[in-house]
């Protein structure tokens, strides 16, 4: 049976509340009130659509995020902007669906636009330097790096030990030589250009005005591809979840299959929290201890 507009809007409202409960709070001062208010809104249909409740969420979130602006991750900002969009939609039920679709589309396009700006501005993506540094020093990537490049875990541990030492004993001008191999360089360049490509495609696809004759299917494919290929390597589940929810909200009510696909993506990305590297660590090459 075709979903009514109000039902579709309610699904978006509920999914947003679930997102807020899981990833929206930046401190306990926000987390505990969220559990109470969002929980009540999830079970009460009148509270679910209450502009006062949504306004309270936005104000509390904005206040807490503003106090911790320098430490919170970017997806907290994005969730805050989305909460604002939902509260505006709750204030204007007649236009709620249009408000949600338009804001979701623009928020996705803009966050990719700025992400692409930073990747080009820094220059470390064009020469693969950032990802090479991450592959050689980030503990979350050590098993992936070791399995794909053959660099032993002991070498990666040594790289991190050296960095820790320099942190404990900072000496101006100090330099440390990290261990690497040719495969790491190749992998980092490949991943860098893939990232630049997919993020640029997402930014363009989601910012193109609707009047242009480009199938919306392409923008959905680009976003889903980005989410599934990025966040299982560098797990930031909060970001993956908010992007999937925005993608769902930006999809028109007639495109039921694509909406369901986004819901599946929203569920699947939760699996990226599983510590996969711990399960496959035994398959990595071992090196000699120093």
């Amino acid at each position, binding site marked *: 049976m075709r979903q009514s507009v109000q039902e579709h809007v309610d699904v978006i409202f509920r999914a947003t509340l679930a997102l807020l409960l899981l990833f929206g709070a930046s401190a306990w001062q926000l987390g505990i009130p969220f559990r109470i208010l969002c929980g009540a809104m999830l079970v009460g249909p009148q509270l679910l659509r209450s502009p006062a409740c949504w306004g309270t969420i936005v104000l509390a979130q904005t206040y807490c995020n503003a106090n911790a602006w320098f430490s*919170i991750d*970017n997806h907290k*900002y994005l969730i805050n902007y989305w909460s604002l969009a939902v509260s*505006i939609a709750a204030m204007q039920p007649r236009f709620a669906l249009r408000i949600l679709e338009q804001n979701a589309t623009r928020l996705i396009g803009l966050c990719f636009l*700025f992400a692409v700006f930073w990747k080009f501005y820094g220059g470390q*993506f064009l020469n693969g330097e*950032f990802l090479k540094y991450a592959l050689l020093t980030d503990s979350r990537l050590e098993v992936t790096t070791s399995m794909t490049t053959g660099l032993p875990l002991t070498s990666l541990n040594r790289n991190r030990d050296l*960095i820790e030492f320099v942190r404990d004993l900072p000496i101006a001008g100090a*330099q440390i*030589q990290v261990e690497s191999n040719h495969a790491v360089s190749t992998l980092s360049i490949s991943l860098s250009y893939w990232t630049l490509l997919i993020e640029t495609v997402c930014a363009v696809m989601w910012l193109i005005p609707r009047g242009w004759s480009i199938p919306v299917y392409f923008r959905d494919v680009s976003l889903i591809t980005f989410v599934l290929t990025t966040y299982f390597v560098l797990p930031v589940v909060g970001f993956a979840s908010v992007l999937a929810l925005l993608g769902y909200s930006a999809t028109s009510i007639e495109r039921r299959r694509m909406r369901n696909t986004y819901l599946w993506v929203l569920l699947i990305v939760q699996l990226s929290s599983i510590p996969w590297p711990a399960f496959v660590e035994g398959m990595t090459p071992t090196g000699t201890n120093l």
Partner: protein
Amino acid sequence: MIMQKSRDSIPKQQTADEVMHWTSQAPPLVLIVVAVVQILLATQGGLSPWKGGGFGMFSSSDGPDSRVVEVTGITRDGESVVLRNVFALPSNQRSRLHGVSARRLHVFPTVRQCERLGNAILNCRFVEIDSGWEALQTRFVKMNPSAQPLIAEMPKRPVRTFIPWDPRRLNQSSGSTYDLTQVSIVVYRLVYSGAANRISLVPLLSPVTIRIRT
């Protein structure tokens, strides 16, 4: 009269719709404003591109974890010492920090933040701890032979390490305490060179020195 009343209500409804139309544009506009401010702070003011709402995370190696803060002090005897746990000040001194935190200093270091931290430190007393300096140096050189010249330039005897004195802690209730006449704070950044496969420690902020007013 009824027709007059209907005509009057149409402009009000149009105005309300226009207000809602512009209000509904607020979220992307706020995103743009915040991101532009973040770009300015990161490119001109030392903010880490990873933070601040500009979506620069994972774009460069200049994340909060790549920043290192070194705090040193000079005792009344004129000896240079390393200070650790400088944010673990006694509760009666924490108000002097005025919101400066370790996290803030790593993500967005400014001269003002360093001065506030320095002034708070100068009002505290310190106790010495065993840093195991010599063992650390030996291990570092073994792992990284290129560091030998740097280590050789350091003072021969181990550098003393102090932490804030908190008389409520049992292991600090006895022993000598020291106060400082000068505090220096340096913020470094780990910079990676892919071509040389080397990580260098580069000052991000000029050293900030705070002295006791005589």
